[in-house]
């Protein structure tokens, strides 16, 4: 019974160490691991001193079918191909058709869209062409 305090102390130490080791092993600095179909739009953002905008397809397709944006709102099937500007958005075009404070949160929440790492190029994240053209691992060669 006497030994109980130091046993618990050791046990506590062990648990803490185990947590630290597991945390470090699981955390590996890596390339982008964002969602399939995340669109980075950096037509004008970097030049204007803003973070690039990121559009998550997965989030929006749970709420709307493709047709709503790509037929009704006129979004072309091309990342960066729509020449979206903040003026168009506040006039109710493109993102502004919903992000107006009625259907979805409005434009003053700059950071929610403009949340990309600075200098991230316009892209469809994880697209086939991105995988074919860009080496995947750091410093790794193509295939």
């Amino acid at each position, binding site marked *: 019974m006497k030994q109980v*305090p*130091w046993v618990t102390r*050791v046990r506590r*130490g*062990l648990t803490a*160490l*185990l947590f630290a*080791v597991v945390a*470090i*092993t699981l955390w*590996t600095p*890596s*390339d*982008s*691991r*964002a969602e*399939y*179909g*995340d669109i*980075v739009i950096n037509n004008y953002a970097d030049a204007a001193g803003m*973070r690039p905008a*990121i559009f*998550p*397809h*997965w*989030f929006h*397709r*749970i*709420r*709307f*079918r*493709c*047709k*709503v944006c*790509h*037929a*009704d*709102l006129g979004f072309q*099937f091309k990342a960066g191909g729509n020449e979206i500007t903040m003026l168009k958005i506040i006039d109710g075009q493109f993102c502004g*058709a*919903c992000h107006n404070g009625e*259907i979805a949160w409005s434009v003053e*929440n*700059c*950071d*929610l*869209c*403009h*949340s*990309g*790492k*600075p200098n991230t190029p316009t892209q469809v*994240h994880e*697209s*086939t*062409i991105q995988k*074919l053209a860009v080496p*995947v*691992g750091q410093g790794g060669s193509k*295939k």
Partner: protein
Amino acid sequence: MTRRISTLFLTVFATGLLGSAAAIAQDAKGKPAAAAAPAAAPAAAAPATAPATDVNRFNRLLKPANQRNLPPTQDGIHDPASEGTTALMPPLSAFETLPRSNAGNRVNWVKALEDRAINPRWDRLDPNAVPVVMDLNIVREVKGSMPDVVYPHKQHTEWLDCSNCHPAIFIPQKGANQISMAAILLGQKCGVCHGKVAFPVSECRLCHSKKKDGPIARTGQ
């Protein structure tokens, strides 16, 4: 005092043990033993150096399971320094209740819609608007041994309007469209969506689904 010293000894011993435990854990994750073993002696260095020296790991081009569907703060394209990033929804919390698949977002979106696990709007404003679904399968006979392609209008018109594909991407006329896997890989034809937002081209059998009958089928086996 003696207790303190023994605790210290035990902790040091445990650290050593854990170092090798970490190495074993890395082996189990499919990383090479050679990279982990020498690092096991300096226990603290083992986990820190492993990722950088891991060039010869098994299937190095595949995304490890623990790096799928990461929250925005860790996904590599969102800026963790931005306040907005922390406010965004982590994908996994949305995907929990949805049917899974083996590629893309690892969600079977078509099944999710069929099962009513999601109910995305067909109209921006009207939550009750319903799509005009067209049930027509187009069979495309393909060269070589691959099964023929069955294109179902039904699943596509659940999501899309006719004008999304016709006539800009596909001319609505039999035999008028040249489609090749090369074009699809480059993001044309089916590749406008498949390989970007719809299931990727790795899922061959989802399109190439009709078994050939005739001589090609026999030579192709």
